């Protein structure tokens, strides 16, 4: 049996932890930050979206709260008071949770009031895992099209066409799900049908 009594233990434990901290805790993230900001500054900075004046209106990756009828609405959110990008969270409710069942029934009832004709997609009444889901399903977007078209005073066909331009398809046809980025879709609508033309009475 080899002896272990003479082998030092604490010196290598302390010294290596110090070196690892310098290398992995400081040098590594700083090196990645350096490369990232040189090569991919937009992504590294959070994929921020700016208006014409250069002011940040959001991140292309982070959902934001929409309630006005002329905008497409994202999914219900459990992050803070809804789309709080400093407090991501799902509801964590189990499938038989009474509050979950009541909440989805209430959401569905209000959706049914705005569009009686179409089936309600599941993502329209459920909260996402992050509470910051930037996307809705294409079916959810189409479901909301009549309301948006009416509120903006534009033909529904024009709104539907804008949706189709913003559908992201699965990679290679099977990786991920088809989806529509709500912020990008709403910005496109604002650009195409500027807000001052809204028919607020709609």
């Amino acid at each position, binding site marked *: 049996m080899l002896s*272990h009594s003479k082998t030092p233990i604490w010196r290598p434990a302390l010294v290596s932890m110090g070196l690892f901290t310098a290398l992995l805790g400081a040098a590594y993230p700083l090196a990645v930050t350096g490369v990232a900001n040189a*090569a991919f500054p937009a992504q*590294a900075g959070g994929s921020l979206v700016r208006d014409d004046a250069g002011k940040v209106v959001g991140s292309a990756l982070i959902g934001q709260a929409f309630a006005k009828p002329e905008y497409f609405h994202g999914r219900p959110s459990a992050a803070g008071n809804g789309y709080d990008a*400093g407090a991501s969270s*799902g509801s964590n409710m189990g499938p038989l949770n009474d509050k979950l069942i009541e909440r989805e029934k209430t959401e569905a009832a209000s959706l049914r009031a705005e569009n009686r004709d179409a089936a309600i997609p599941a993502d329209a009444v*459920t909260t*996402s895992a*992050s509470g910051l889901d930037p996307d809705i399903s294409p079916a959810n977007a189409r479901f909301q099209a009549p309301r948006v078209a009416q509120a903006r005073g534009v033909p529904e066909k024009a709104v539907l066409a804008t949706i189709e331009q913003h559908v992201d398809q699965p990679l290679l046809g099977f990786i991920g799900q088809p*989806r529509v980025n709500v912020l990008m879709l709403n910005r496109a609508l604002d650009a195409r049908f500027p807000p001052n033309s809204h028919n607020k009475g709609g």
Partner: protein
Amino acid sequence: MNWQGWAEIALTLSLAVAVGWPLGVFMSRVWNGERTFLDPIMRPVEALFYTACGIDPKKSQSWHAYALALLAFNLVGFVITYAVLRLQGVLPMNPQGFPGLSGHLSFNTAISFVTNTNWQSYAGETTMSTFSQMIVLTVQNFVSAATGATVAAALARAFVANRGEGVGNFWADLTRTTLYVLLPLSFVVAVLLVALGVPQALSAGVTAHTLEGADQKISLYAVASQEAIKMLGINGGGIFNANSAHPFENPTPLTNLITAVSINTLGWAAFFAFGRMVLAKKDVRALVMAAFVLLFAGAAGVYATETQPAPAQVAARVDTTVNMEGKEVRFGAPATAAWVAATTGASNGSVNGMHSSLMPLGGGIAMFLMQLGEILPGGIGSGIAVMVVMALLSVFVAGLMVGRTPEYLGKKIEAREIQFSILAVVIIPLSMLGFSAIAAVLPEALKGLMHSGPHGLSEILYAYVSGTANNGSAFAGLTANAPWWDVTLGVAMACGRFLPIVAVLAIAGALVAKPKLAPTAGAMPTDGGLFVGLLIGVILILGGLQFFPAMALGPIVEHFQVLGAVQALR
């Protein structure tokens, strides 16, 4: 369910094996101290480590010395992490001005990151400063993963040796795994993730003025650099509360595929590295086969449960093809199902959908894969190590049936190896079920639950299963940041980590001294379909059967409640 979904699941899980194979060849070269293409960069750094630490990397240690070095290194990591978290408030790089963490939360978090569990009783973006994330948490992500890897390297040497003495040098294994495998790979994956949208910023964030005129504070961090090692190191502790469901950690289906593959690939690589070192590629292929069958079955099971009608969606009369509560639109059922299996089969614990909102059997499968002992493929090295323990128990069972002294990979398996094998696997149910039983009747513990009834029991069981298995995922309805939960989960994580590690190193110590036997016709073949079947049987009996009563009161009874509720609501 559709073909696209099955294709996505199959691709995600099998790509990890395919990538793991060449990485495993490379890993075995690193463990053997052979030359690699990274030598020009890393040799000088490695030499600096050895000089500064005052150790001779070529000096092989006894299993005692190896284990003591491992424990000392981890103790130092624990103390430093605890201290930094307690003192966070007075340390630099804290733009949000977060205060220091409480004693129990620091205790829990320090053990959690040192043991490669990365259970998080806290929400990252409202608790942790950039300094804490980088200087202690990111560092532990690396070195806890490397610690697990050293165990496999030592065990492999024990099988190779012919009447040998040492099992290798812990400091060399630790340093080489970190410098040659984890660091370069993480750097590449981190930069790739930034290119695909994951932020990497040192500022606290920005305030956006939304289209509807509200202010939205957007938290930013050095996300990509931690995300890469969080996956590759099979850690799982996210920067953000929502973990890999957060669009900043995992913005697209492609980042989801890359990170999901990263979860398992180094675990598989350790399998292949072990096989190459022991010159037992076929035997290890059998181990991979057994693990992959169970892993794929788990993913398929979750895909099936998540496409059953969810009661709330039935009640609301909306589309019921997918249970969308707690899922992201860009991932849907298949990418979430593949992730659930990948993260619980490996000891990762990151999530891209909320496990608490899975259908009851979906959440049950997540628990079940962890109960098997984190071997599908488990942590880097720790997975293959426990898998070998399962193989030892399998040949022992077979030996009992035919009345011969069992052999595995050229070593006689005798009483001492089996005693330590049992020790390694018995701690798992003891901690998981023991703590759960106490918590289920303790008012102090029950205060933290979000649900009552079967789902509440599942919250308890999931927490101790996840902690003991060093997984770190959760039924996150549980409010775990309270003294009872923080302390007991900390103890469960430490037991589930270090007792099996010491037991495996003891097995290595026993095996290394034995003569290496030439294969004989009388020994049971351990590379064929028969052995794969036997091994799967042993894994399922050890991991599954003893948990069945507890599972019956949690996910299984809840499943029947869901069926009843759906029928009543229709």
